[in-house]
């Protein structure tokens, strides 16, 4: 088991390393000069631009040969230094990203987990009756085929501006500053509902379909046949099938984590929700190397972390996996 875990850790570290290298490499392979970009924003006020260009170039290490830039990048990373933002200068990327991260997490994690639970439950529920299955299935398909942003816009329009039920911008009222009070939490939740719902519902469809397909397979498996042969009622057969069908779904959860990022980015843009997605979108349009990299890094880190967590959790959830490791 130790062996297995250390192997996993190694793989994840390697993946992380590759990710950060890609992260470093891509912008440097592309045309354009981010420092210039920065200065041109500055030119409306300052006078001595050429000097400033040299100064910033040095500061961002752009004047060094590529390889030492890379080493510098890695060295800075180990110190948690992700560089300095250009469009949000002089804020550090670490500060910007760490401020935005909690918002993204509290939006996406509950959306994924709850859609996972509810979707699985509904999928299993629908799979038991042909009639129900046939009527509900198209609904799941349409949900999962809906672009996150389209649903976000519809929800914002209908529940937000037409019915005036939920606020449609920000993470909490503009009339507030964050505080650890109940009324603030309620306000926060009130703002959270719509962005959450738009991710939740799209995800829900996918989980329900996945669960439905798996349940149909599991109900056809030998162990289900045996249970029926022993006269076990349908309830037990289904319960066992559900229990096993959940396991591949958990692996799917790891994959979905990467996918849900899409939902998070577009949803955050629509609702002006101050998470990583919004930062990323802004940084892209402003061609802010460092923030794009920092946001990417954060997303990768979260997805890798969650994947790792699921990998490890899987050992405890699935005896088959655990058993296959005893030989190690």
């Amino acid at each position: 088991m130790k062996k297995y875990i250390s192997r996993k850790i190694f793989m994840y570290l390697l993946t992380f390393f590759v990710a950060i290298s890609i992260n470093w490499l891509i912008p440097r392979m592309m045309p354009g000069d981010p420092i210039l970009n920065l200065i041109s924003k500055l030119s409306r006020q300052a006078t001595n631009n050429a000097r400033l260009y040299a100064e910033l170039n040095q500061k961002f290490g752009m004047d060094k040969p590529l390889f030492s830039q890379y080493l510098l990048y890695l060295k800075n990373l180990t110190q948690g230094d992700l560089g300095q933002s250009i469009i949000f200068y002089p804020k550090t990327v670490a500060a910007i990203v760490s401020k935005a991260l909690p918002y993204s997490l509290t939006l996406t994690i509950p959306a994924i987990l709850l859609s996972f639970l509810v979707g699985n439950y509904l999928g299993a529920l629908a799979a038991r009756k042909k009639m129900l299955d046939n009527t509900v299935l198209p609904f799941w398909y349409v949900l999962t085929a809906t672009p996150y942003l389209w649903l976000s816009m519809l929800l914002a329009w209908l529940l937000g501006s037409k019915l005036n039920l939920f606020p449609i911008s920000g993470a909490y009222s503009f009339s507030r500053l964050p505080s650890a009070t109940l009324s603030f939490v309620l306000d926060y939740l009130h703002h959270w509902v719509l962005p959450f719902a738009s991710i939740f519902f799209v995800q829900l469809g996918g989980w329900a379909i996945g669960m439905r397909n798996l349940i149909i397979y599991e109900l056809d498996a030998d162990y289900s046949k045996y249970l029926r042969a022993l006269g076990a009622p349908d309830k037990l057969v289904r319960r066992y099938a559900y229990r096993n069908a959940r396991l591949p779904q958990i692996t799917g959860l790891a994959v979905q984590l990467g996918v849900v990022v899409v939902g998070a980015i577009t949803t955050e843009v629509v609702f002006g929700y101050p998470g990583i997605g919004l930062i990323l979108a802004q940084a892209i349009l402003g061609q802010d190397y460092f923030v794009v990299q920092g946001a990417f890094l954060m997303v990768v880190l979260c997805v890798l972390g969650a994947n790792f967590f699921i990998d490890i959790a899987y050992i405890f959830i699935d005896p088959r996996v655990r058993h296959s490791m005893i030989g190690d």
Partner: protein
Amino acid sequence: MQRSKRFILLALAALLLTLPLAATAEKETDFGRKDTVYVTGGMWSIPTSFNPITWSVPAGLRGLTYESLLTYDALSDQLKPWLAKSAVWQADGKTLRVTLNPGTTWSDGSPLTAEDVAFTFTYGAWSNPFAGYLETANVIDDRTCDLVFSDPAYHSINLNLYIWPIIPQKIWSQIPAEEATDFEPSLEQSIGSGPYVIEGYDQDRVVYQRDDDWWGIKGLERSFPAKRVVYIKSMANNVAMAMLSQGRELDMANNYVSGLPAFTANNPALHTYYKGAPYNLPDNIVFLMPNHTKKPFNDTAFRRALAFAINTDDIVEIAYENMIVKPENSLGLLPHPGWAAYNNDDIAKNLGYSFNQDEASRLLDAAGYRDTDGDGLREYPDGSALSFKVSVPYGWTDWMDALRIITDNFREVGLDARPDFPDEGRYQNEMVKGEFDMLLNNWGAYRSSSPFSLYQFLFSTYTPVGEDEWTGNFGRYDNETLRNLVQEFNRIPMDKTQESNAIVRQIQTVHMQDMPYIPLWINGMWFVANTNTWTNWPGEVGSTNQNYPSLWTDKLQIGGLWMLSEIKLK
């Protein structure tokens, strides 16, 4: 087991919800609706540094918290006292005597003195607007300071008198000048002199709280009705519109809102400066900038033909849904009292242009740009293919729409022009390096106390290709006479308009004859307010609040501050 697992997951979700709270204050805040004015439009990014002398200041900081010496009434073209009672040029023409209002204090209660003024204008090098031509700053007494210039650039200096914030010496003297722009003052260090102090901020907002001990209550006999001003980061267009119509958490927006005419018609609570078209006051001019280092843009006849080919009315009517004014003539000046003295209509009439595609075709034909291969598109006189692109940054939707109209116009006169929407980074990069074909830009062409700012933007510099151009002559139009004229303009005192107009006439003559940059349309000062909570917003009629309605950075000083002090609770 199933149930327990579900419980764990729910608990996890609940736990995560509390995460963002951990890092924040313990005291509950809920601003009363009637105490607060919510505004958006001027803040384009998350609040970064509360350092007033950097370029990326959060909107409102300069104006609400840090004050300039004077303000400028952009509607009536008058410099008005603010921190300074007056700023008067002395007889030598090189010394500017600044006299502070009595009782000016910092928000911590300490007095704001002439020392601070002197410090502000002598501190640092590239964070100082007068660096290079301010000789000394002599503190005469507690209230008086003489700024002595080696080369009095009257118009530039005038501009900065109402823009540049006075900073507290006691804080900034601790910061080495070369680190000035890196300095991030904490909220405790953010000691300004203005009517509001920063109460707090988050990713998408900055909250300013009224300073009830503000010196100006007595010193300027002026007060601000709103206990708080909440600046909200610019939001998606549709969100802004929805929030404006609800008026629940948004009172005023200073951003371009597509579809506004249709929307205001159905929402009586919405208020714009003009009731109908053009809805908004003019604020800045957008220029079409050809790259003079490239063929065929180095051909004056060609540039003039382009000017005739563009249907600016279409831009106003379609791209902007009549939300902006149409230009009076082709000089490219704002219809603004501060510039009125320079609106030399005769030059425009004799030398300028108007939409006339026949004339454009005639000019092109005459210059030899004819369709020789019969494909409907013109070629160079030597028969080689002619095509070019015109760029605006991706995502600037109103500009993108306008550009589509422009390139369509060009095609209508047989020119193979393509709209190009690079992202902002590439746009700027190509602009600064002079690698574009044509682009649209408006950076220095904003409402100011003198059209000098416009001509400085367009004509004051020349940088050959290979070096980076920062000021505004991105097309590398090389005309030394013109450059000298602009400098000359700057050296004529503000009040000698006749003398300066003689120079401006020369500039305009060259501009219209040579047409290095083509003025296209006049962007509006986007402004729309909801009157459910706050009323008496600036408006053409029926409002006592006759002030320039803008809360953009550096526009508080030309009207925004005055506007805020004159709105009323419903």
